[in-house]
């Protein structure tokens, strides 16, 4: 289709009567929306990861109990009936608490940086 000078009236009619502009803060507002949506998406993915981990762990534990629950229970009863079984309980508990606190403190330091 040949575009000629004949189309002057059409070109004038297509020109906007008053030029309309986007507000000057449009890029800023759009970037803010993009970042908000990204943050929401990340939060959603994080939540999904937690839910998946919990579900998989529960299913795993349930399967384990179903398959070898009886054997585990019997072994536990026999181990607990021996007198020197609980010698290591207090040191183990102490270590667990110590590592939990250390992990908490390191996480806070990491988040600060």
């Amino acid at each position: 289709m040949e575009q000629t000078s004949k189309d002057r009236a059409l070109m004038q009619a297509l020109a906007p009567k008053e030029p309309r502009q986007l507000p000057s803060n449009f890029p800023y507002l759009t970037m803010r929306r993009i970042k908000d949506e990204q943050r929401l998406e990340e939060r959603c993915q994080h939540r999904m990861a937690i839910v998946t981990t919990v579900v998989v762990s529960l299913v795993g534990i349930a399967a384990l109990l179903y398959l070898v629950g009886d054997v585990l229970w019997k072994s536990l009863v026999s181990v607990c009936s021996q007198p020197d079984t609980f010698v290591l309980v207090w040191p183990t508990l102490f270590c667990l608490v110590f590592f939990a606190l250390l992990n908490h403190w390191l996480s806070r330091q990491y988040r600060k940086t």
Partner: protein
Amino acid sequence: MQTDEQELIARILDGHAEDFGYFLERYSQEAFAIVVRLVPRQEDAEELVQDAFVRAFNRLETFERRSSFSTWICRIAYTTAVSWLRKRRMKYLSIDEQPKLTDAEVDETLDDESRIEELRRAITLLKPDEQTLITLYYYDNRPLNDIAYILDAEPNTLATRLHRIRRKLYLLMKHGTNK
């Protein structure tokens, strides 16, 4: 597509979202010019352009570099505006049966500078794709290949459509735009 724009896109895909600001600064007005012709209210047009840029950002990895970024964002802005209009079921005039007209008659009417207001009213009654097509071709002087990409059409059919739109405008002006 400029090399530095390709590099910027690679950086954005690498996690530097803030670099998208460059494309917003550079192309938002161009996309807005397409949307604002189809959507009457300024606020709606602004929101649609924003939606288009957010969609572009989220689909940046699908940008194939078959076109320039400007054409790509215009296409997204156009489809966003058209689906918005479809949801609101805006009515446009459709003239399927066209009586026999000579090209001279049509050319003469579309060249008559004393009838610009009539022509403006007739343009508003065209369908969104028709309005966009004549605007991009006659006003923005874009190449037919770019327009075809924006409107998702074959370049060969656009010439025929432009011809038909000219005749439609003539009929709308002849029979009054209140048809």
